[in-house]
């Protein structure tokens, strides 16, 4: 693996981003809308002295952490969709870049893009709604890392589906988030889910992280055990995502799906 090829992938997406208002808006506008919406709801509930079983910060904490999963997943998957949209897939595949180098570049780009949007979100939460993300507790770094890895694992699944189904799967980065968010229990405890959905949630690392986040905000002792479970599940999802994406890329090569991009 060579750095110049990995960073070429990052530059490929950086150059259009910095000079395109719509792309900047896409990365920052919706997070701002989200923070205004959930922040205002939090303020309203606080002023009503609503009786809640959890500290009110769980709404903003959930939003801030979920946004990271969502952005990381989209940024990786959209690198390839973007190449397809701009009829650049054949040129990239005809270059000496390996799938691992491409993927590494895409993940680095996702970290840059998701990181920038997340920094803005956390700053706005602090300035406008007095919510300090560090108030979640000392495990916040672990939460972020675990959720980032889960986001990347999901992006591999999306990439695999895009290799398999082509343009028909272009909407999947967004759709997949909608499918997963109920089971991730971002804004409510897992116990609020019906029994079968709790079983599904048990297999999703993000659900364990959000449970741990709520416990931390409630001042309960940090449940490191659940974070280890989340880490184990992350590894399984990452390996599964990688194997799936690789298998679908193999199918792409065997079935000549490249003709979809000509």
């Amino acid at each position, binding site marked *: 693996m*060579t750095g*110049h*090829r990995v*960073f*070429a992938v990052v*530059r*490929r997406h950086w*150059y*259009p981003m910095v*000079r*395109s208002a719509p792309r900047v808006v896409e990365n920052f506008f919706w997070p701002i809308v989200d923070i205004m919406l959930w922040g205002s709801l939090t303020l309203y509930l606080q002023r009503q002295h609503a009786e809640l079983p959890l500290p009110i910060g769980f709404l903003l904490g959930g939003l801030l952490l979920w946004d990271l999963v969502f952005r990381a997943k989209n940024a990786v998957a959209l690198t390839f969709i*973007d190449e397809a949209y*701009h*009829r*650049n897939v*054949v*040129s*990239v*595949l*005809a*270059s*000496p*870049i*390996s799938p691992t180098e491409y993927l590494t570049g895409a993940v680095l780009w996702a970290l840059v893009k998701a990181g920038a949007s997340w920094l803005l979100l956390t700053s706005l939460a602090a300035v406008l709604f007095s919510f300090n993300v560090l108030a979640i507790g000392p495990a916040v770094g672990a939460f972020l890392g675990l959720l980032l890895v889960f986001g990347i694992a999901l992006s591999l699944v999306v990439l695999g589906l895009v290799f398999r189904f082509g343009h028909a799967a272009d909407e999947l980065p967004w759709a997949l988030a909608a499918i997963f968010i109920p089971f991730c229990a971002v804004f409510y405890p897992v116990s609020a889910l019906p029994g079968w959905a709790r079983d599904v949630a048990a297999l999703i690392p993000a659900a364990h992280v959000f449970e741990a986040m709520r416990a931390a905000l409630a001042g309960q002792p940090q449940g490191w055990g659940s974070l280890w479970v989340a880490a184990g599940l992350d590894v399984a999802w990452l390996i599964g995502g990688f194997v799936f994406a690789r298998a679908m890329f*193999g199918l792409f*090569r*065997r*079935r*000549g799906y*490249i*003709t979809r991009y*000509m």
Partner: protein
Amino acid sequence: MDAIEATGLRKSFGGMLAVDRVDLVVGEGEIVALLGPNGAGKTTTLMMLLGITEPDGGSVRLLGHPLPRERQQALQRLGFTASYVEIPGDMKVWQFLDVFAGLYGTDRRRGEEALETLGLGTILSRTGNQLSSGQRTLVGVAKALMTSPRLLVMDEPTASLDPEVAARVREVLLEEQRREGFAVLITSHNMAEIERMCERVVFLAGGRVVADAPPSEIAARYGGEDLESAFITIAEGQR
């Protein structure tokens, strides 16, 4: 060492045979055309030669490197352009060259020099959306030349160009080829272009090689006065 050495290439899609036992050799510094009617299997063959589509059977060596094992080393010195690839509309030309210089581990300035030679040194700061289709094609050619190729693969590179620009592209390509001595594999539906540029033509029809000879020989063999007549005879024979 041959630039391309493909033996017994086979590919079928859903039971339909697209490429059937194709042997193709392009010698070092040789200019070869891969011709055939629509659906003859040219693009599938090219994609297998580039390691993008996996053959069902047969083997490929590019610049002495066997595929798929040494694909990265082989593609390092292979320039590729086609009528169906484009510079992304939201990227400036210099940025596009910079990205591909990174992918190939080469210097962007080589691409800029190639653009200069093609008479387009002033478009570096324009975005893909601001270029004519001809200019976009020429940027693709400059990108292909930027790799200091030992093998240039071009799939209908002049399809979107007007005759004057196409002639300039041919002139520059031949000049570069004479200077650098790289091998060329080109597909085109412009038979006059092929006659002017190529030493040898490999004719595909129905996924098979039906002729492999210099253009004048193929024209004579199929009783036509030029390559275009031969093309029509072969294509009609396949229907």
